[in-house]
């Protein structure tokens, strides 16, 4: 009890932070709503920019969690704070219950909380004009990553090898029409990575990336873009997808402006991949509500300070890590989770403030 921490969210941020905290001798419980840990990372086949296997990163994070008390398949239903102690209620009994309650609820106590509830992928159906869920050959980047993982090849819904593939950037990002003004940051590089992977698998296919800006913000990203152009001959069309339509043969007509020539641009593709962006996880809002935490207009949690206190919140003892604060890459999430773990440990080791 004295030094117990509850980490909410078993994605890469939560796993990393939990592991780091446990290494420092703290008693850590990690709560995950799914049956397995890993979050979105578990859906990835290979990571940008070096295309290393996502499973390696996941295995590393799981390895670090040996001393973490892992509770999966549970949802947090209530959180309350009494001084420096938190009471967390979850909705299902845990295997070795401390205080079982009759209505399948379990009450946990902790000195500090770490929120790592991450993000949800933007629901591509909301962009009705793109036809996701309506046109058979419109898929999302996550669907594509699933197919990469299955290693069964890339085929259209008609079972043909696609000759032309479109990749649409900024789906659900930078788009007031779906209420998301922000940039999801990692889609650009994901799009370029997936374009290269598609070319590796289907060298004869033409791949088109429809982008507004290419935000190659991190090291080796720009080089990946260069490689996509030079080695793989991926085409980049600067213009946001306006609308799609389906041809009788199932192929997709894509309409954008080619802003580089200032003309409307039309192309038929056999497969269209939508790079869906980040939206705050549904559970983030719930938990923020329970704690009275402040979220931004975008729905992500605001940290206490965007530069120097970006793992703390306005509530003492409540910390945040990873995509719960906004779009972030895997590498950044791991670094952020480690920083959060240190911040949290320092907090637990500091003497109790008199007024708290």
């Amino acid at each position, binding site marked *: 009890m004295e030094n117990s921490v509850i980490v909410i969210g078993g994605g890469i941020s939560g796993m990393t932070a939990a592991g780091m905290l446990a290494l420092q001798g703290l008693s850590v419980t990690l709560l995950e709503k799914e049956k397995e840990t890993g979050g979105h990372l578990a859906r990835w086949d290979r990571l940008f920019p070096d295309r290393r296997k996502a499973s390696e990163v996941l295995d590393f994070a799981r390895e670090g969690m040996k001393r973490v008390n892992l509770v999966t398949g549970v949802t947090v239903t209530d959180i309350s704070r009494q001084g420096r102690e938190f009471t967390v209620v979850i909705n299902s009994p845990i295997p070795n219950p401390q205080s079982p309650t009759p209505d399948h609820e379990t009450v946990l106590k902790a000195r500090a909380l770490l929120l790592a509830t991450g993000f949800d992928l933007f629901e591509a159906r909301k962009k009705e004009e793109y036809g996701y869920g309506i046109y058979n050959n419109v898929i999302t980047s996550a669907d594509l990553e699933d197919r990469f993982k299955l290693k069964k090849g890339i085929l259209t819904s008609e079972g043909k090898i696609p000759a032309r593939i479109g990749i649409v950037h900024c789906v659900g990002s930078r788009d007031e029409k779906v209420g998301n003004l922000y940039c999801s940051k990692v889609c650009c590089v994901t799009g370029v990575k997936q374009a290269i992977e598609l070319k590796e698998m289907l060298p004869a296919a033409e791949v088109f990336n429809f982008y507004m800006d290419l935000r190659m913000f991190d090291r080796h990203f720009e080089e990946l873009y260069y490689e996509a152009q030079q080695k793989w001959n991926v085409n*980049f069309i600067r213009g946001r997808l306006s609308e799609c339509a389906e041809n009788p043969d199932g192929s997709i007509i894509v309409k954008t402006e080619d802003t580089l020539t200032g003309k409307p641009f*039309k192309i038929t593709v056999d497969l269209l991949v939508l790079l869906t962006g980040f939206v705050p996880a549904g559970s983030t809002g719930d938990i923020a509500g329970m704690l009275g935490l402040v979220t931004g207009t975008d729905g992500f949690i605001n940290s206490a300070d965007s530069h120097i206190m970006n793992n703390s919140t306005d509530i003492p003892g409540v910390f945040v890590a990873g995509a719960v604060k906004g779009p972030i890459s895997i590498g950044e999430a791991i670094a952020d989770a480690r920083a959060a773990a240190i911040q949290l440990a320092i907090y637990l080791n500091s003497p109790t403030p008199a007024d708290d």
Partner: protein
Amino acid sequence: MIDFGYTITKDRQLDYDRGDMRYYRLVQSLEPSVDVCMECGSCTATCSAGQFTEFNIRKAHTLIRRGNTESIKAELRKCMFCGKCQLVCPRGVNLRNLILAMNRAIELLG
């Protein structure tokens, strides 16, 4: 045919499906560095010819890339070949040869 006093306008749309990609493929084989253009426009900004007339080498090459060569055939004749574009290109595109290759493609393919 009846003259109604107006005409059916041609679509401004770049229809890639109907684009003639032979030109670009030939250009690509003659000057492979064209692939790495990132459309920054520094070539057009420094262009000697561009100071005296509307000549946009970035756009012209992009139109060929989109399979729309017709509109730029006359444009490409404006290049003075001085090579400034090539010196400023951040991606190292061999622009002089690119222009040569585009003209060559037009010469060979009509």
